[in-house]
């Protein structure tokens, strides 16, 4: 908890943490929503923000506030699944490539390169189209997780390469401890902070991807996500019809969410890299 207290002193982290807290509260509130997000025409349509509909209602007859709670919950869970999956893959590939080196390193990096090379958006659209009907949150998370690890595997590998040069790794290797214990005892403490920072980065990538897929109408459009909310708002011409509250809610949520995630990953990575911290501290 001490690190959290220290981190909170950093203004940027404070703002990011506040936004994340609000979003978490929103997701929890979704369990108490009086309306079923899958039903349409449950409330009068096209009401501007007023009591009892704080954020107004949509042309499909849904309350925007409660819809947002579901959207945020689903988007966050989906992006968490996606970034967890991609972290696991990135660590495994990054670690083995970095630690083993030689042939293994070349082949693993070759695989991750080929993932970077294939036009990603179109492959994901194809998979989404393929699974569309039966695509639930976990499915989408898995799909994005499968494609989100290539870049971070490379980052982890270069970190491991620089770590491997350090003496304490040589002593561990020479003292005959198994690769697994080296990996967990020696590398992990250094990697955890890096993994955490890239996790947040990957989460924002996953949510960004989900929004693009939803706007292209390739996802299962019934499940409430930030992307699908945007899709319905655009599809029902909320901009031209002047229902500004309908288009603004998902846009503002996604902007704040991205800013929070970005600031959090920047301040955490700065917190981890002492040199950056001193440089900032001195600026009294």
């Amino acid at each position, binding site marked *: 908890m001490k690190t959290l207290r220290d981190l909170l002193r950093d203004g940027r982290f404070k703002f990011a943490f506040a936004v994340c807290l609000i979003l978490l509260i929103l997701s929890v509130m979704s369990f108490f929503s009086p309306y079923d997000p899958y*039903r349409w025409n449950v409330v009068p349509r096209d009401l501007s923000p007023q009591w009892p509909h704080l954020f107004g209602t949509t042309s499909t007859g849904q309350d925007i506030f409660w819809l947002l709670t579901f959207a945020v919950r689903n988007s966050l869970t989906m992006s968490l699944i996606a970034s967890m999956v991609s972290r696991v893959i990135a660590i495994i590939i990054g670690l083995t490539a970095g630690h083993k080196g030689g042939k293994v390193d070349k082949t693993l990096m070759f695989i991750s390169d080929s993932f970077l090379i294939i036009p990603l958006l179109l492959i994901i659209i194809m998979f989404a*189209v393929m699974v569309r009907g039966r695509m639930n949150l976990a499915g989408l998370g898995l799909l994005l997780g499968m494609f989100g690890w290539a870049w971070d595997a490379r980052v982890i590998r270069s970190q491991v390469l620089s770590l491997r040069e350090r003496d304490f790794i040589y002593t561990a290797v020479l003292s005959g401890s198994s690769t697994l214990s080296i990996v967990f005892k020696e590398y992990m403490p250094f990697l955890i902070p890096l993994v955490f920072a890239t996790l947040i980065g990957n989460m924002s990538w996953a949510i960004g991807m989900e929004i693009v897929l939803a706007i292209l109408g390739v996802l299962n459009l019934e499940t409430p996500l930030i992307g699908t909310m945007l899709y319905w708002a655009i599809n029902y011409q909320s901009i031209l019809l002047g229902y500004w509250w309908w288009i603004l809610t998902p846009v503002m949520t996604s902007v704040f969410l991205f800013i929070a995630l970005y600031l959090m990953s920047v301040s955490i990575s700065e917190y981890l890299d002492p040199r950056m911290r001193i440089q900032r501290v001195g600026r009294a």
Partner: protein
Amino acid sequence: MRKVLLVVSLLFACLVMAQLAADVPRNETFIANQLTGRVGTPGNFNLWAGWRWQDRGIQNLLLEPLWCVEYATGEIINALAAEPPIYNSDFTELTIKLRKGVYWSDGVLFTADDVVYTIELLKRVPGMSYNAQLQEVAEVKKLDDYTVVVKLTGSNSRFHTYLLDRWGALRILPKHVFEKVEDPMTFEFNPPVGTGPYVLKGYDPGGYWTLWELRKDWERTPTGMLYGKPAPKYVLIQTFGTAEQQVLAMARHELDAADLTMEGLRAVLQRVNTARAWRRDFPWSVNIDPCVTGLHFNNAVEPYNNPEVRWALTLAIDIVEYAGNAFDGAVTLSPIHLPLTSAYYDWYFTRIEEWLKSLELDLGDGQKFKPYDPTAGERLAEYAKKRGYKVPTDPGEIKKIFGPGWYKYAPDVAEKLLIKNGFKRDPKTGKWLLPNGKPWTITILTTTNPAHPSYRNGFAASQAWKKFGIDVTVMTSDALATLGQRGEFEITTDWPAAEPWGGHPDLFRVFDPYNSEYLVPIGENAPWGNYGRWTNPEMDAVIAKLKDTDWNDTEGIVTVGLEGLKLLIKEMPGIPTFNYPGVVAWDEYYWTNYPGAENMYCQPYHHWPNFKYMLPFLKPTGKK
């Protein structure tokens, strides 16, 4: 210094220049949106090679068909043909009389040689359009310059319908152009030569617009002869990426006719004061589209092969709430497997209404039930009034706008029917269980575009049946066509029955897919219109009778048609719900006298071939 001045002036000129090039004055141009989006091969006009979208001006401006369906007024227009088709007694020989004095746009006379050459060429080269259908042709020859005789291998009383234009037909190609070409498949046919009133002026290499110009000798084309001089000198068919763009273009008076979603229409009506919809007030949408939407059961899958289960599911639908969920009530209900355009209303509905009222279902324990509810239209009108829309009071108007009637909302009767067939309700959850005890779950397969009527049908049905106590999931897929043909679905939102001609009472096109000859198991390709693999010996008899009635014997066709319709309603292989609500928006800034609901001289869509017949009626407003 002078060069700089030149650049600046040019820059300024570009910025201020209107959307059109200088030599194409806006007030003499009619601009329409291209429904099928960007053209993949802008420079290629050869519609006979393979298959191509033709609504960029090819079918609606450049080429005339032999006959053309006009579903607004319910007639068949003789374009290149002079009169309806003539068959011999056993329908193995078809004679076509051609219109005299028609010239191709490059000044060559249109004669029977063109028709003969077209049929022979398409039959010979595989991959050309209609190549498969023309294998039936044994021999084609011309009696004189304006008469063609086609001998068939078997007897087919509807062979000429390949040449009847209903958004697509076998079009006659210019013999004097195609005979010089060694490979018709890769021939680009650019610039194209046509029999219609317009000829190509230019096209966008990026595929976003095609510009057509009125032929100087327009009076030597069927359109000119039948309806006079088309008003606009130029017609521009342009693709707009999104609905928003169409709304903005119309607001800047850079678009005269747009295809929009319902929401896009509301945006245009709110933002552009000179804009109007097909119907001036609620429900604005076009209800004379020649096809009816609804649900389609898969007869090869338990329990949907049982007509009583299908009737139970029909009675479990409250059609007013259903239409509310789908299009907020702005639809025309139809209880029969036909769209209730004014033509079909007169030909069929007036004669079947009495039978419908007397229709009875046997509930098993000696009880009978009359499912038909003639007040459904009024109930829907009440709902619309409650929603705050301006609804007419005259019953005749209501019948035309909201539909004459539908089936009662009778969940109790549906329950009796299901129990009769061994279904039970789960005592704890109240959800329905199949006869074998497992919970009844339905997956409805539908398209992916939520604005499409079939998506709205799928969604509304799932809401209705969820209320009735069945677990329903809506599965959207872009491979609707593939899954449908292979029968990999329980219920789909494809049309309940194939679309009729629209301009002719003949229902052969609706009944033929049900022919037991074409029945295939799941996994193989079922004919369009009967993905549900439903067959019935009585229907086979109706089809056979229809094959023997000549195309021009309308009375005979109607009596046989009625018989088929009654059978479809008794068996209910698909549930018809409401007409396809087409949404069209016009801008009356440069042009007026559009074929709206109050002035139905022609059908409203600009992507239909009939667009060229609409243009002579338009009047310029004289605005510069």
